[in-house]
């Protein structure tokens, strides 16, 4: 009995999150159901949007700025851009929506006894579900352009795991701070746009590393972004030329998991104040 009362009293922690998986699952289902309610195409929208974006970047970088040579070594640019955009779409929508996950569901949070971590985590999971729905599209592109199906396919779950850790960590930080300072939400649009170009989503990493006009400190700053390694990992699933080196891989992995724990610690230390402000 003492165990039950202690955990219920706290209602936080990994165990609590697992015990409330039913609630988490329902929140994810509700998120998806509400999003595609009253739209004819429904779930297809989660494919149409990134496909449209991929089309634009293909037009700009694959057609207009295609100065004769190949944009990407060891693979076709359409595959590259589709893989990058789908992975990025998950990241950016998860981050910007989880920022509002506490403020927009205040009435639910103030009447229910569930670990508050569930709300930002549910956003990351719901956006992942959309990403997973897009994987067949990536496979179709890979088949059509003759990308190699090799051991690198095993990197896909690795990339997903690291990206999940990073996104959950960031969503803890953004969602809790946004309750205390609504400025965060305002800033997100700009931040997402910057991050989009600050990671090798639509261009290969080699272009940055080989850019002679870029000073060394700028390249270092660029490489400090943990998304660089994660996006590279996504690309390398279909194109072994893009394999990140071990240093980059371990850097992104350790930063992602460090942010997960820092984010969780911050979330829990701010929790009491956040609840008063909701």
């Amino acid at each position, binding site marked *: 009995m003492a165990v039950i009362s202690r955990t219920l*009293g706290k209602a936080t922690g990994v165990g609590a999150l697992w015990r409330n998986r039913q609630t988490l699952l329902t929140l994810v289902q509700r998120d998806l159901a509400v999003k595609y309610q009253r739209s004819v195409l429904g779930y297809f929208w989660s494919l149409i949007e990134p496909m449209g974006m991929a089309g634009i970047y293909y037009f700009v970088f694959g057609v207009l700025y295609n100065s004769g040579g190949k944009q990407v070594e060891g693979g076709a640019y359409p595959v590259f851009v589709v893989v990058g955009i789908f992975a990025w779409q998950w990241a950016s929508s998860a981050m910007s929506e989880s920022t509002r996950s506490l403020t927009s569901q205040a009435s639910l949070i103030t009447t229910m006894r569930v670990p508050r971590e569930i709300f930002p985590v549910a956003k990351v999971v719901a956006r992942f579900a959309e990403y997973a729905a897009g994987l067949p599209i990536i496979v179709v592109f890979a088949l059509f352009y003759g990308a190699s199906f090799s051991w690198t396919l095993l990197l896909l779950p690795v990339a997903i795991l690291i990206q999940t850790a990073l996104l959950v960590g960031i969503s803890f930080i953004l969602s809790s701070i946004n309750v205390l300072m609504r400025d965060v939400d305002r800033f997100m649009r700009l931040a997402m746009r910057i991050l989009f170009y600050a990671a090798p989503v639509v261009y290969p990493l080699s272009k940055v590393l080989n850019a002679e006009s870029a000073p060394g400190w700028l390249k270092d700053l660029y490489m400090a972004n943990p998304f660089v390694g994660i996006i590279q990992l996504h690309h390398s699933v279909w194109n072994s030329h893009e394999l990140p080196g071990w240093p980059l891989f371990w850097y992104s992995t350790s930063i992602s998991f460090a942010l997960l724990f820092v984010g969780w610690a911050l979330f829990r230390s701010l929790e009491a104040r956040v609840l008063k402000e909701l």
Partner: protein
Amino acid sequence: MSKPIIEARDLGIRFVRSRKRNLKLRDMIIHRGGRQPSADYFWPLRNVSFGIGQGEAVGVIGSNGTGKSTLLRLISGALVPDEGSVHCRGKVAPLLQLSAGFSGDLTGRENIYMVAGMHGMTRKQIRDKFDEIVAFSEIEKFIDTPVTHYSSGMKVRLGFSVVTQLGHPILLVDEALAVGDKRFRNKCYQKMESMLAEGRTLFLVSHNEGDLKRFCTRGLFLDAGKLEVDGTLDEALDAYNVVTGA
């Protein structure tokens, strides 16, 4: 003697009085510690201790702004106390803001699954209880209509039906009984009585003497954030009437 099902010890919570909050990032991360001037804080609730046994029906009385709703939110776990602790030895069914959690775009049927699921019911449990929930809320005809088109009474009826089917041993009620028309209110009263007869614990916040006398045997009277009376309902009501001059 079994342990109390709800136990509060020296419970206290403070809020910041002024809007000018100290939002330096440094202070947010290491904000514990008594450096802050205490003048900026007020305590809607402080030094509150009580224990409620299983099956008890407790009414909470007090003027507006004396911390009743804050107490409910603390018990339901939606606020974290700054002092002391509150423990519940059992799950809590919150009959607070009954329409909270409904998504207007979804139908009544979908919302039943969503809200009951968020309270921890599995799909199978919901399926078993579904007909009962719908029948009690009397919205059979509109079960596949989006909740946006429901009247506020319909939403509350649906909310009440879902939360009372959760089977949780502790019921927290905040004026929820005051809603709905007379006939539905009577139905809710009967439902509450039958749940009390099953041995559930009731924690009721109300200004309505009739409601309180109907259900509660014990009364807590709160005044200015302090628990002034913890005794029979009549004792608590008498103290309340002295303060309000009635």
